[in-house]
């Protein structure tokens, strides 16, 4: 019994068929709990009013936006080292989800920032690095789309993911440096969970659990789709030959 068993597409399909509904149901329950609890049964913040409630979407989405890239980095490495197709397909499957999470984080942030900061957008380090992350996702997905041969595409995108990760982290620190001391207010973004009251913290945890399991369920689903597409292409190719 080892992790590498799941590199076999057949084994992966069998296991994911069982695991996927569990994660989907768990995602539904925790998301409903977190969001309903968060939106209707938490008090308004004394300074931010009801706008504070966007935290239940913003923070989990931002978290998953970064973690989706981390997952792609790990699966890309596995593909480059061990050549497991499922791994490359999982990276491909995760990219659009990560992109969506990035967009959700950016939009909810803008919606919150408008009444609170008085602006939709500020060139604050955190915001800027998310915009850069958005560009990295776009480039990664575009490269997958552009290359026709699936193995070539997997190789090239994996190399891009590795190099991109280094530059993404570098950009994060460069951006910090670039805007140091120019903007206050960036740290108002409620990132310090130690400061947050339990009234917000517990539903936030539920929402984060919901986003994590939603992400896992979606990645499994999309990976299954990619495997089925690959099988279909193989069948079609065989028919053309025979």
């Amino acid at each position: 019994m080892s992790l590498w068993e799941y590199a076999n597409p057949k084994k992966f399909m069998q296991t994911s068929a069982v695991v996927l509904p569990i994660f989907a149901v768990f995602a539904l329950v925790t998301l409903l709990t977190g969001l309903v609890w968060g939106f209707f049964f938490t008090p308004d913040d004394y300074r931010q009013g009801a706008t504070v409630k966007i935290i239940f979407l913003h923070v989990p989405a931002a978290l998953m936006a970064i973690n989706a890239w981390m997952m792609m980095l790990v699966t890309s490495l596995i593909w480059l080292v061990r050549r497991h197709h499922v791994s490359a397909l999982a990276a491909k499957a995760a990219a659009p989800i990560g992109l969506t999470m990035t967009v959700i984080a950016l939009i909810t942030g803008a919606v919150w920032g408008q009444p609170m900061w008085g602006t939709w957008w500020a060139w604050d380090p955190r915001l800027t690095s998310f915009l850069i992350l958005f560009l990295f996702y776009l480039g990664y997905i575009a490269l997958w789309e552009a290359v026709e041969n699936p193995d070539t595409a997997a190789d090239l995108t994996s190399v891009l993911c590795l190099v991109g990760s280094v530059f993404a982290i570098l950009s994060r620190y460069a951006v910090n440096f670039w805007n140091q001391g120019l903007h206050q207010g960036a740290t108002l973004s409620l990132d310090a969970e130690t400061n947050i009251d339990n009234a917000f913290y517990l539903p936030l945890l539920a929402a984060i659990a919901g986003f994590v399991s939603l992400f896992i369920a979606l990645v499994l689903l999309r990976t299954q789709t990619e495997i089925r597409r690959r099988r279909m292409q193989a069948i079609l190719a065989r028919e053309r030959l025979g």
Partner: protein
Amino acid sequence: MIALLIRDLKQATRAGGGFGLGLAFFLIVTILVPFGVGPESATLALIAPGVLWVGALLSCLLSLDRVFALDFEDGSLDLLATAPIPLEAVVGLKALAHWLVTGVPLTLIAPMLGVLLNLPSGGYIWLLASLGLGTPALSMIGAFGAALTVGLKRGGLLLSLLVLPLYVPTLIFGAEALRRGTAGLENTTPLLMLAGITAASVALLPFAAAAAIRVNLR
């Protein structure tokens, strides 16, 4: 290896090689900016460092798809891949050739464009220093992007989408070094960071680029 470098330089500087296009583009971008933002010299002096850096970066981007594409089309890239020198060295030489025909001329012409943008007199030395330190990184990162897209038919647009996010740290530190230097502030840190990015790119990216070329030649 030197023969390869000389060959690349000759190809780039001959008619149709695109040499000078980047320079002309840099000139045009710099001339267009005052039309866009107005001719007040105080405003221009304020934005000059950023405009010069962005202009240099875009001009560098312009000639990137030529780094490997011509050799890929006529098959000489296959020969170079099987040549006795490692492919990593070929990539490094290609990036060096690209830098010699774009980065160096851009750096040298930048002070003249600085005059057009009313760059304060203290800034010229830092303009030369920051572009001189930063443009090798631009060429090397660009060569990596070109290696990724060399097999694609419409790779040019994709190349910009892939390479521009990778240029962000270089641009930030380069423009910041120039801005601080122009304002008479301490700018050792961004200059050192810029030099660090260049050194790391030149040291590591040839391996990634060579891997991408091997995949594309498969």
